[in-house]
């Protein structure tokens, strides 16, 4: 083979390569220029588990379900309950019934009218069927749903249900069409779902893409955008690349430092928004944490401001209680100081000191929420300085339940908890209820208070009770709240959306310009 032949071959190959690149390039540009002003492409970190909104409670899926289906009640950006498919509601004083007025003239995407029969089917009849749906658990106390007229119904409970209105706006509580579902069956419904929401499902590719088209007959405010494409992009690096390349217009859950970097890119805007998610230490009430002084010392030794600055750019608000600012049972005037000297004094009171440190075990997830393991390591160092030796181990989120059931959780576990409603029962009432799978604290001093509060129907008395509980559990070291978590978001500058306190990013509120 001569040099001349090789050169010619090389030139031929380069020519072919350039032509190939040109061919590849054209459609890629065509794709980005095709986007009109009435469409948006979103990069979302998780798919919906199924197109049956009652089936599985997955927080990441709720903003998607809310585009196709409607809930009886909604929440405004400040998280107050607002009318949805239900226009008026009244919880009985004993908490044993909830009367609702349904919106008239609402139709499902298949044309069926939405009536009280659909409400009864969703919140009562479906729960009695063999369908494997999570709403069976959330509405386990529903004894009946009495239909008074096509637009009036009464939910009756077997035990007081003080948070029933909140649950009507929470996980999985979406009204589904009785007649259609019974006619086609659940599997066929999942293939072609019909809700009453602002968008209808146009195309779905498992773990890849959801395409929604605007429901022009929607009963509520008409969404500004005609078409919403949701690309399921699970890897944060790929989401960052996709927003940077212009393949998508908005994405969430990218690392904090990347939000700062991407904000400097022309045409992009980054946000770090505090939401109703708490990061806390779930504590045991025995072993190395049997002594209240040790638990309180562990809390006083943690510099929450430093954690926020180091891992969330200072955007995560340090929390004194297990509730986020602006929610009903938050205590704005209650403080729990970062005081390493006091931590040492408390340890000394219990006989621990530099020569005899307190010893505990400590667990953290790694990658379950942003910077979780790094936060745990920082806390481990803070404790060491105060005189607490913590042996840190990594656990999967799913392992938490098994360890808790087997009574094998360590003294402290770093944990993250979402509560889109902001209601105190779904904060402390769940996290510290020994009858639920989350609570590492098994002491009935706290347990009795929580269980009693779960039966209080009067809203004012209930919130007052949880405020008292929030103070009590921190003052006795039953929990160590750390930070209000943040949601990171990167979007094109020209795209705006309505910001919700619980981190919902709803395409129905998005618009260009």
């Amino acid at each position, binding site marked *: 083979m001569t040099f001349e032949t090789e050169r010619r071959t090389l030139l031929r190959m380069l020519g072919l390569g350039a032509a190939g690149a040109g061919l590849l390039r054209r459609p890629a540009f065509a794709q980005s220029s095709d986007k009109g002003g009435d469409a948006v492409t979103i990069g979302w970190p998780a798919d919906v588990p199924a197109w049956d909104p009652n089936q599985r409670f997955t927080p990441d899926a709720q903003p998607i379900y809310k585009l196709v289906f409607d809930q009886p009640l909604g929440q405004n950006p400040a998280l107050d309950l607002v009318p949805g498919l239900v226009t008026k509601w009244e919880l009985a004083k004993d908490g044993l019934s909830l009367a609702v007025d349904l919106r008239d003239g609402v139709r499902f995407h298949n044309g069926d009218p939405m009536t009280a029969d659909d409400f009864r089917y969703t919140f009562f009849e479906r729960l009695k069927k063999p369908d494997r749906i999570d709403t069976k658990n959330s509405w386990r106390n529903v004894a009946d749903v009495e239909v008074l007229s096509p637009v009036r119904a009464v939910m009756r409970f077997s035990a007081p249900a003080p948070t029933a209105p909140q649950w009507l706006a929470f996980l999985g509580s979406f009204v589904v069409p009785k007649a259609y579902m019974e006619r086609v069956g659940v599997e066929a419904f999942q293939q072609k779902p019909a809700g009453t929401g602002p968008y209808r499902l146009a195309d779905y590719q498992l773990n890849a893409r959801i395409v929604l088209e605007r429901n022009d007959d929607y009963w509520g405010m008409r969404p500004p955008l005609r078409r919403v494409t949701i690309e399921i992009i699970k890897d944060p690096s*790929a989401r960052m690349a996709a927003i940077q390349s212009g*393949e998508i217009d908005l994405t969430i859950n990218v690392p904090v430092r990347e939000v700062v970097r991407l904000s400097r890119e022309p045409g992009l805007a980054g946000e770090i928004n505090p939401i109703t998610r708490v990061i806390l230490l779930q504590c045991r009430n025995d072993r190395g944490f049997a002594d209240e002084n040790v638990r309180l010392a562990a809390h006083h030794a943690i510099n929450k401001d430093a954690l926020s600055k180091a891992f969330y750019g200072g955007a995560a608000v340090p929390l004194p209680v297990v509730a986020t600012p602006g929610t009903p049972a938050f205590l704005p005037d209650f403080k729990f100081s970062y005081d390493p000297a006091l931590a040492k004094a408390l340890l000394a009171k219990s006989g621990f000191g530099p020569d005899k440190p307190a010893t505990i075990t400590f667990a953290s997830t790694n990658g379950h929420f942003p910077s979780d393991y790094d936060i745990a390591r920082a806390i481990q160092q803070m404790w060491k300085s105060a005189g607490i030796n913590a042996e840190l181990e990594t656990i999967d989120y799913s392992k938490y339940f098994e360890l808790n059931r087997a009574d094998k959780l360590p003294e402290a576990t770093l944990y993250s908890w979402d509560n889109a409603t902001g209601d105190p029962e779904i904060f402390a009432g769940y996290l510290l209820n020994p009858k639920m799978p989350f609570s590492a604290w098994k002491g009935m001093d706290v347990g009795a208070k929580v269980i009693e509060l779960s039966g209080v129907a009067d809203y004012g008395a209930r919130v007052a009770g949880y405020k008292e509980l929030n103070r009590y559990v921190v003052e006795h070291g039953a929990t160590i709240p750390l930070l209000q978590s943040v949601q990171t978001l990167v979007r094109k500058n020209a795209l705006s959306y309505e910001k919700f306190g619980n981190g919902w990013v709803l395409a129905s509120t998005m618009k260009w310009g």
Partner: protein
Amino acid sequence: MMISAVLPLIGRRLLAAALILVAVSALLFIVLHALPVDPAAMSLPPNATLAEIDAKRQEMGLDRPLPQQYLIWLSQVAHGDFGASIHYRRSAVDLVAATLPATIELAVLAIVIAGALGIAGGLLLFHLRGTRAEPVADLGSIMLLSVPEFLWSLFFILVFGVALHWLPFTGRLDPDLRLPAGSGFLLADALIAGRPDIFWSALRHMILPCFALGIAFSPAIMRVLRSSLIDIYLEDYIHMARLRGVDERRILLRHALKNAFLPALSLMGVQFGFLFGGTLLVEVIFSYPGLGNLMVDAVRNADLPIIQLVGLTYCAVVLTINTAVDSLHLLLNPKLRLG
């Protein structure tokens, strides 16, 4: 005659494969059930009580001894029931069947790319032997070998997706196109449906992930091919060909490469198993809706029925490919048929 030589091998391999699959299923079952995760708790919503979780555990049979649980599972499998996904609440078989074609398509194209790059690179390395460029080429192949597929993925996304905008890097199709109904093998479905736009879009979406997978596996093929060629060039028949006046290109392509390719083919068979496993990360990075993506979700959600079935599927694919490669080896190498 050649086919009749291969059939007994396939028969023996199928029998062995069945036994291996049963052994692997037992191993997977034991390992998965020894993990300290609670599938019952994972399958219920956050507000489920401890009593409800215990009831669920009984319903799922998790309170029974492990051997009994395995036998129940095995008898259900014999009836084609691999259980339902905890996360998706759908039949595990349906989910795997829906995602497997995407992964097979990806892996096959990737091994073709790996083979093409490997053969071209092997020939180049062989061509450069003894020259001053040899150490540089050697170093290049070692560098290629040392970069894992997920790094190639990120590199390709940054260069060809973000910087140059040449190729898409999420999903299987452009957003304005709909998947055609069919087998799930998108390229074939598009051709059958007479949709060149879908075929072209699907191919463009496959280029980056397939190259990320293929390029990571090509250096080993290059190096094996180069070594084989060096060995074969010492054989008498090569000298005889030269003495007969056959030109070098013909000696290489007609005589040496055919024989030197056999070890590379065996290697490609072994590598296909690794490559198939490598799709796991690559699919997540490229948001490619295949088996790997499903597996990552399953691990995250402690979705044991899916993990078990995907594990068995990986095993079955590797066994099938090994059998196919051995059969091909037998067809291509007359010496093996004599034995």
